[in-house]
């Protein structure tokens, strides 16, 4: 944990209230997000028990699997879920600006926690290869839902994507509580820290919120007491009598508190003003959605179980640059996030005390003299940047600079670019901030095409064609 983060955590503990880590909201929040709270059967990786889903807080839909061990029931549940989610996604994925190759808007699915994100992946995994004909056929929307769930999950692994979000994850990025990271995974407790009932301390409210009878777990895992005392008898009742109204009522009672918490979380986030770079990041989601939509329309195969060498390498590189760009972008938008980096020594703020505007040098290896102004800044920050490093400033993001020297709180930087007409350079007395963080996503080299995969990586792979085997697992 960073220095500022630790400090705020201690402060949260002392005051009994979560502390803001940011002054702005750094994720996109859709006008009508789709809240999705899945529950699964204990002991099974991907056997859904129920889900509460909907984009209208006044109108949650509850879907249940009366006997989670019955695969027919499971896929009937998936078909029902598909009836809700696929049209929701389609209203965005079908509206593509073909010239720009991006959708006009994108869906946003909110799940309670990281477990919900992983479960979404597993649901996609278990349905995208299902056959719509032959034995154990499923309705056509089911494999399509599997594809979309897989897409949502794959996209959500990129930093800054807002297409599938875990509420606890997003809240923890904006607030720090006085409890551990594992405890922050409990949505009820986390919200109690951030927004305790009037007149109560957050820590006390969080303690109460941890009671599974008061706030049932936000899934996908259910409370063992509930499993044992409620779920099991009611499933048995269904088995013997075929009556599922009681099961329905019990699951409704389990899920409704989390449903309310999800919308409260969304309200808290909506109250924060959106940061400047949020829209650009959402646009990337819209581009990704358009691409997937076109792939599906063209009848391409669903993504395979494994990435080929190129896909793996490309994805890793893209995830890395998204991560770096997201971290830096947050700092550029938000002075509180920047303060965190300043404490870590990778950024500094100070007052300009001296200026050499007309300095001209001949850069090594060049012949022409060029303008390279020097700016001297006095700072109290503990700067840990090595001379020669490229620096950028949130105030002048287009102006690339370079650290020349640091000596006893006096930092000298050289401006290397971005001095064309209309650009300003820092003035004496101005407060400026510079950092080695870079919000741009760097250039990536081209990888060899699949047919040219070198022997070091196993040579060209055979072409991927999904088979029924893909629906199974290697250990099954």
């Amino acid at each position, binding site marked *: 944990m960073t220095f500022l983060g630790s400090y705020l955590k201690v402060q949260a503990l002392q005051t009994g209230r979560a502390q803001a880590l940011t002054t702005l909201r750094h994720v996109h929040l859709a006008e009508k997000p789709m809240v999705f709270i899945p529950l699964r059967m204990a002991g099974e990786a991907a056997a859904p028990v129920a889900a509460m889903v909907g984009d209208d807080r006044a109108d949650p839909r509850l879907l249940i699997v009366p006997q989670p061990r019955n695969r027919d029931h499971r896929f009937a549940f998936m078909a029902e879920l598909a009836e809700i989610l696929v049209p929701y996604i389609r209203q965005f994925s079908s509206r593509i600006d073909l010239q720009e190759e991006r959708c006009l808007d994108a869906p946003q699915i909110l799940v309670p926690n990281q477990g919900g994100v992983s479960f979404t992946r597993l649901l996609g995994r278990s349905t995208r290869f299902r056959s719509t004909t032959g034995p154990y056929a499923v309705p056509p929307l089911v494999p399509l839902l599997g594809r979309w769930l897989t897409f949502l999950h794959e996209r959500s692994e990129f930093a800054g994507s807002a297409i599938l979000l875990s509420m606890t994850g997003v809240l923890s990025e904006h607030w720090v509580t006085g409890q551990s990271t594992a405890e922050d995974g409990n949505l009820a407790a986390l919200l109690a820290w951030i927004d305790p009932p009037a007149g109560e301390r957050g820590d006390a409210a969080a303690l109460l919120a941890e009671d599974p009878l008061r706030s049932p777990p936000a899934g996908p895992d259910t409370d063992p007491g509930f499993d044992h005392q409620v779920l099991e008898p009611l499933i048995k009742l269904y088995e013997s009598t075929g009556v599922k109204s009681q099961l329905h009522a019990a699951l409704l009672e389990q899920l409704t508190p989390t449903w309310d918490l999800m919308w409260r979380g969304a309200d808290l986030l909506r109250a924060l003003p959106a940061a400047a770079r949020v829209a650009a990041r959402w646009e990337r989601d819209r581009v990704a959605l358009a691409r997937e939509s076109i792939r599906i329309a063209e009848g391409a195969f669903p993504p395979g179980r494994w990435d080929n060498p190129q896909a793996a*390498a490309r994805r890793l590189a893209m995830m890395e640059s998204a991560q770096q760009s997201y971290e830096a972008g947050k700092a550029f938008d938000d002075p509180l996030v920047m303060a965190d980096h300043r404490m870590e020594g990778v950024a500094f703020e100070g007052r300009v005390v001296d200026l050499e505007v007309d300095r001209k040098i001949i850069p090594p290896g060049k012949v022409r003299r060029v303008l390279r102004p020097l700016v001297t800044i006095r700072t109290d920050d503990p700067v840990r940047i090595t001379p020669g490093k490229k620096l950028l400033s949130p105030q002048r993001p287009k102006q690339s600079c370079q650290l020349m020297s640091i000596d006893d709180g006096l930092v000298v930087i050289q401006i290397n670019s971005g001095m064309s007409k209309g650009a300003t350079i820092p003035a004496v007395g101005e407060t400026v901030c510079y950092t080695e963080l870079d919000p741009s996503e760097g250039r990536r080299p081209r990888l060899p095409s699949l047919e040219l995969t070198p022997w070091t990586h*196993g040579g060209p792979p055979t072409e991927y064609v999904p088979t029924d085997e893909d629906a199974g697992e290697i250990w099954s």
Partner: protein
Amino acid sequence: MSPQEAAAAATASILADYTSRTHKGLVVDSPPGAGKTTLVVAATVEIAKAGERLMIVAQTNEQVDDLVDRLASREPQLTIGRLHAEGFEPPPRVTRHDNVTTHNKAENVDKCQVVVSTADKWAYVEDRTWEWAIVDEAYQMRSDKLLAVAPLFADGQALFVGDPGQLDPFSVIESERWAGLAWDPMQSAVAVTQRLNRLKVHQLPVSWRLPASAAQVVSEAFYPANAFTAGTAPGQRRLRFTLPGLRDPWDPTLAEAGAQGWAMHELPNRHAVRTDPEVAEACAGLARRLLQRGTVAEDEHGWHEAEATRIAIGCAHKDQVAAVRKAGVPGGVTVDTANRLQGREYDITIVWHPLSGRRDATAFHLESGRLCVLTSRHRHACIVVARAGITDMLDSHPSSPKVQLNVPIKFPDGWAANQTVLAHLDRHRVAAVGRG
């Protein structure tokens, strides 16, 4: 066989295999200071003599510049191309050689007998191939980087050289998506190549850097499957202090390190913040005292003064580096993290033990490569600074990494390696006295 003969025999058989054109790839495992660069230079000369072109891939600009400097100094006849990124300024140690051409475009250097660059830059080179390639520090290179550069030499012969005991490549992304895949992009270039091909593996048998006192323990702890020996005999490398010491709290530790090649400067057991000020002060104080005492290093070539530039302080984290600097390190002494000390060599190293003062042992702190780098940079002596109680902490945190399907087991295990090193250091323990 003397160490010299053993090393010469190993080099000869590597070069014979490499130039035989019967192996599309060869792996050379090189323990710390075993003459990896010497081997690269020898192989380069061999290829150039035959009138062939060679490309060398290294991982950092620093490594490339060091290598170019070594090659150019040893072989002034050789034409060497130093390919670099746009905007990069090659340092004087590269530009001072007449036989080196530096440029940022491949077409301006590819006529040279040898072209050296970083993997990052090679990845942008297109429409050219080389018959011969050497991948240096291949264990530090990530699999995805290799994928981008391998087409340049895929139809020729490649030599992968590196130290298997050092730190694994790193990513800011934590994803289990590729765990178990043969081409998992997070693993090292050698790991991916060896999982899909069974290349012949050679090993350099002698560490010229590590003294006799260190070779055995480093070999046992970090290279259990490929033992190596020291190039010098016990007692050949010693530290002598020309100015007497008496009351200073650092002196007992220095005496132990000078005589034995190892010392564990042990502070009282205590949980501490990561930037433990007492450990920082001890690291800086020991470095200061080494210089005050006029330390002289005796070795097989005679003796020389152990100047500030020959001393390094190694830490696990950047903030620890800053804390040590703040505690007052004499000018010229290197203070850096394990990652950045890889491939470097000093007379004396002072190590901030990664587990000192910790409550738990995370995978980061247990990584065997980190401790291996820190304890294998020295020619004469290594002083480890730590709080007491690490062994107990390790015993209460047995390592239990997540088991993934199809992921090869990694040797050595970090937990076991830490225990081996601590058991050895126990024999050289000096309890800190006074304020230290």
